[in-house]
């Protein structure tokens, strides 16, 4: 036994054996489709006739003519900036709050965490109902205290902020991550700072913050990557709020109201699977890919814990 294990060729074979599920998966379900996406981005292909080489025409079309590309890119970037920033701030505040709670911490933790578990479609349907302008509970309650509530998902200016509210409701994952990081800060450092007469703010600034920056960084970068893919909530909110009945095959303009909830991933779907413009859809995919990869590189370079703990 000991003899066979020490043979390097056998060891290499053993490593390959253990890695084989992923090696197959990586090549078939990642490398191949990625290369094919690049290939189709130079083709005219309607998924019926044979693909036809058209050079950069799809790229020019997307960047120069496609009417919805601008709004979709703007919405995606808007969500990336606003949603990620607010989620990190809110998640950190809740993490701080939960570490300060002395009585009933378990109850509060569960209450803050539970909405994160709500399936995105269900949570979105629930929010469109809660925020529906005419009879929704939220505007009903606002009316009781004399405020005329906005039209939320039915108003182009309020649709994205409503999606942000929905994402803040599901803050549970970030809260738990921040809570764990905050509990890891050594007690003695706080005590030492107190002896030096530090107030609450200086304790946060000079003790808490330096030790949680890697986690904050991690939360920002994964948040950016997730928001780049933001799809389900925006699509479902738009569809339900518009009240449009969608049977299979029927094409509706995505991003109700006024393209305000149209994101780049939705545009990929509607180009590829509703307009059958494979080339343009693949160009959009590659734009998404480029941005996601740039962010991932940043994640792996900065100390954010992903590649650390190697040994």
């Amino acid at each position, binding site marked *: *036994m000991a003899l066979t294990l020490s043979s390097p060729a056998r*060891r290499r074979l*053993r*490593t390959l054996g*253990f*890695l084989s*599920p*992923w090696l197959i998966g*990586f090549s*078939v*379900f*990642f490398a191949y*489709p*990625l290369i*094919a*996406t690049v290939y*189709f981005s130079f083709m005219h292909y309607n998924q019926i006739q044979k693909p036809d080489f058209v050079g950069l025409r799809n790229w020019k079309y997307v960047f120069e003519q496609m009417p919805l590309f601008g709004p979709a890119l703007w919405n995606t970037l808007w969500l990336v900036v606003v949603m990620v920033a607010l989620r990190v701030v809110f998640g950190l505040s809740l993490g701080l*709050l*939960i570490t300060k709670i002395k*009585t009933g911490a378990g109850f509060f933790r569960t*209450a*803050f965490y*539970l*909405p994160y*578990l709500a*399936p*995105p*479609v*269900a*949570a979105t*349907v*629930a929010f469109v*109902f809660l925020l529906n302008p005419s*009879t929704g*509970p939220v505007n*009903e309650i606002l009316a009781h205290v004399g405020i005329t509530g906005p039209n939320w998902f039915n108003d182009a200016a309020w649709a994205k902020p409503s999606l942000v509210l929905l994402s803040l409701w599901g803050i549970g*994952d970030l809260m738990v991550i921040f809570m764990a*990081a905050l509990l890891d800060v050594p007690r003695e450092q706080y005590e030492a700072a107190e002896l030096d007469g530090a107030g609450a703010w200086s304790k946060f600034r000079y003790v808490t913050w330096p030790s949680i920056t*890697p986690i904050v960084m991690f*939360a920002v970068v*994964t948040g950016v990557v997730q928001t780049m*893919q933001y*799809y*389900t909530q925006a699509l479902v909110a738009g*569809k339900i709020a518009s009240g449009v*009945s969608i049977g*299979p095959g029927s094409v509706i303009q995505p991003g109700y109201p006024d393209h305000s909830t149209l994101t*780049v*991933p939705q545009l990929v779907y509607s180009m590829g699977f509703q307009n059958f413009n494979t080339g343009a*859809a693949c160009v959009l*995919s590659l734009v*998404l890919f480029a941005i996601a*990869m740039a962010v*991932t590189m940043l*994640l*792996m370079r900065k100390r954010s*814990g992903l*590649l*650390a*703990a190697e040994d």
Partner: protein
Amino acid sequence: MTSTTLSPVPTAAPARVSGPAAARARRKRVLHWIAVHCVAIAVALLFVLPFVFVFLTSVMSDSQAMSGDLWPHAWHWENYKAVFATDGFLDWWKNSLLYAGLGTLFTVCSAIPVAYALAKFRFRGRRTAMILVISTMMLPPQVIVIPMYLVWAQQFHLSGTLWPLIIPMAFGDAYSIFLLRQFLLTIPKEYIESAKVDGCSELRTLLKIIVPMAKPGIAAIALFQFFYCWNDYFGPQIYAAQNPASWTLSYGLESFKSAHSVNWNLTMAATLLVMAPVCIVFFFAQKAFVEGVTLTGVKG
């Protein structure tokens, strides 16, 4: 002096130093306690109220659900029966369970050996392999969906089923591999070495020593994958949309709303029924879940 008598906290031990300074400190602590819990209760209300409103609406009559009322006049539990009686609703359940159940099983079985190799074997290209796993994990699913769909639809004729979503999970899911590897890193090398001294093969070591020790990590990736499949909307939309017999709950729910456009009560009942399994699973596996979430943010 008045401050001591007003303090709601009774002086505990007679030996304790009393006096204005101690009283002030105690009062500060009590005020702090009250402030923190007031904020916590207010926030908890905001988090729980959406569920409450959804539930209350789900038991209203058709006409009341269209009004602005917050409290039901009469409790119409039969709304839930009506949801279950909706065409296809039970099929959606079956499909969700198939997708999430098989998907989870496949993911766990394929992730264990890969995560083990990445955590404990030393080989050339290990770092590159990790970088590739992380890159796959970060990739938006929309990037590769078009060629994948064309392969499944044109070569295998599997569009209209959930198999194009389930089969790839037998070949390692990047996120699960990454998480499990982070967990396996915490298992000391000595266990593996002593197993080898006892003459265990690598595979035996993995199955007899590592898997039992890694149960919390495996439970975490299983839960995550189950929830991912249960919640997935994009996947079923791509592959199952054309065939209502393959719809999952997450996909069907949205069309449910379109079909019952005026019946908020039925839609809310269906919404709660989609949320329920996830919440039940959570209550039984809370510890594994919180551990898993923490694992995603492990520090270096």
